[in-house]
């Protein structure tokens, strides 16, 4: 009995780590730039394809290819902020929503055109391996993904709390006008925020590749989970998104185990509804 529960919790935490990377990106962009990035999942997809091609063409392990996907997507994020998002920032939310939504559609269909709808998988030596401890098992690929994801989240937390640029980002998130008065250049801060968020999405893509298939629509699965996590963990709150993602992974896994395999998401959304009803600002917190 306890074994089944423990296994379900382990499974949930492991996949929650991946949800966290995506949702931290979304919450960071929302917190700092104040826009909702509907295309976040598509950047996960791009990260997956980059890793896939590096693995099949050059034999680079998907986890190592993180060193390529993260900088590539960081640059992409900076460029997207500088050339696209910067132009629609203003009092009206609509152009921003349309912009990121259009970006999502564009990337998705571009991927369909270039890569076709086929599923692509990378087979690494550890893809099918698992550690067995007692009656429990921990898949190696997912453990690597989880550890790296937590590591990256920790680095981000340290960056936001100790460096000048990180503090500037948090300041810009709290109040853009005051931050500007303090001599912070919002354009520069926004570019970095977008870059980091996309780099995290790229990292998620690379980490997923050893155990998940890449296909053009793959991002949609993660976008949905990320949005729930972001709302659950208080909009714009990085730590909240992280904890919410892990909780969602566990809730989904337990839901599948004890309610039904098609009800995993029901538990997640029930959790979201209850949170919104009793703690509308989200689990992470304080009212703004």
């Amino acid at each position, binding site marked *: 009995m306890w074994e089944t529960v423990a*296994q379900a919790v382990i499974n949930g935490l492991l996949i929650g780590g991946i949800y966290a990377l995506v949702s931290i990106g979304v919450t960071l962009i929302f917190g700092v730039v104040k826009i909702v990035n509907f295309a976040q999942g598509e950047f996960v997809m791009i990260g997956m394809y980059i890793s896939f091609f590096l693995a099949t063409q050059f034999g680079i392990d998907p986890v190592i290819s993180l060193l390529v996907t993260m900088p590539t997507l960081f640059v992409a994020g900076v460029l997207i902020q500088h050339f696209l998002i910067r132009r629609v920032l203003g009092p009206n939310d609509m152009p921003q929503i349309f912009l990121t939504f259009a970006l999502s559609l564009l990337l998705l269909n571009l991927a369909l055109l270039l890569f076709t*709808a086929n*599923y692509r*998988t990378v087979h690494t030596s550890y893809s099918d391996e698992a550690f067995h401890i007692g009656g429990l*098992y921990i898949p190696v690929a997912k453990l690597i993904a989880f550890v790296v994801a937590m590591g990256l989240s920790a680095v981000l937390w340290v960056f936001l709390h100790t460096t000048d640029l990180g503090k500037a980002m948090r300041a810009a998130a709290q109040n853009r006008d005051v931050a500007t008065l303090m001599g912070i250049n919002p354009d520069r801060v926004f570019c970095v925020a977008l870059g980091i968020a996309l780099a995290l999405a790229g990292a998620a893509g690379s980490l997923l590749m050893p155990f998940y298939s890449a296909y053009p629509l793959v991002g949609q699965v993660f976008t949905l989970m990320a949005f729930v996590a972001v709302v659950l963990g208080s909009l714009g709150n990085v730590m909240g998104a992280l904890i919410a993602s892990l909780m969602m992974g566990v809730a989904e*896994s337990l839901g599948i185990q004890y309610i039904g395999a098609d009800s*995993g998401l029901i538990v997640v959304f029930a959790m979201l509804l209850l949170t919104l009803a009793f703690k509308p600002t989200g689990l992470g917190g304080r009212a703004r």
Partner: protein
Amino acid sequence: MQKYRKRSSVGKTDPNEPRSKRQSRRQFLLKTGGILAAGAFGAVPLRGWAADAVNIGALYPTTGSMAQIGVGCVAAAKLAVEMVNDAGGIKSLGGAKLNLIVSDVQSDTTVTRTETDRLISGNKLSAIHGCFASALTLIASEVAERAKVPVITGSSSDQLNKGRTYTFTPFARASQFAKAQLQMSKLVSDKPKVAVIFENTAFGTSTSNGLKELAPGEGVEIVMFEPYSAGFTDASPLINKVKSSGANALFAVSYLNDLILIVRTVKQVGLDVAINGGSGGFVIPDFYKNVGKLAEGLQGVAHWNHDMSDDAQKVNAEYKKRTGDFLFEYAGGLVAQTFMLADALERAASADPQKVRDALSTLDVSSGYAAMAPGGKVKFGPDGKNIYGHPVGVQWQNGDLASVFPEADKRAPLMKT
């Protein structure tokens, strides 16, 4: 739309004008010569000019989510038409060649309806084959029934045999697939305990309900019967559940991506179950490409397999030369279907769809390419179903699919896993 068409047709004729004039002069001479000759010899159809090509419509999803399989089908359809034509075409029609008109149904039901309509109204068709996915074939068949054009298809939905007079299904039906799958579980264990997991879609639900209904009659115990949401991110919780159910066989009614996750997770858990992946996405070369060595020993069911007969092997070798992959279930069946159509045309001695339909209804073959079906015989009953039709049980062995069930169709011993 119309404007665009007009413009494009103008653009096409302009640069070709000199050549087309020359061509029409040659055609004129040929035709007048032919008519004179025909008059002289009593209207005997002459080879070469008199035999108008016989149009066969091919409806396949060559773009969209099912494109991979649709493209393979079109390659097989072209190969089959070439084979018929190289062997002298339809002799009773003066050696008329088959002319394949391919139309893309885009993996979409609405597009299938309009494309079938367009194909029928825009061309003089003798017959149609298509569309791989049952959901699409059902619609194409409806449209064709109304237009009274015969449809021959490898799609497995039992629905295609209900209240239709122009639809012919030479291969095993969905209900037969379920039965074969249950019987195969007894190859693995005398007391099969089966866990059925299926995606919660129309396809998953109907297939798995078929399994559940037939299980008691086959003496198979179902210990777990669980729908899951298609496109999940993690199969671990589901496999965790299979593990606690104590099953020794696992039936997964899933599409490719979910199936890959399931197979990998079973391996990671170290669970000892015989997996049967059914048909469709499980018995195509792409599956092995994605799953690799883990696919070895996995079982499935198919309505056609390339190791069935020498004829099938021959076609497979040619297809492999062209595309690099082995001839998969649906595409292989399609080659046989083309020869069934050729047989019907031969006996009908007419390209008229009504006459082709009548000739198909009396088709009875047990040799040649048209008889490439499990059991080696094709004869249609009043519901358009091949009365000898049944599926074969297959197993992935060394990157290839081997027929292992039933005894009569077995071409390789079952690999123990």
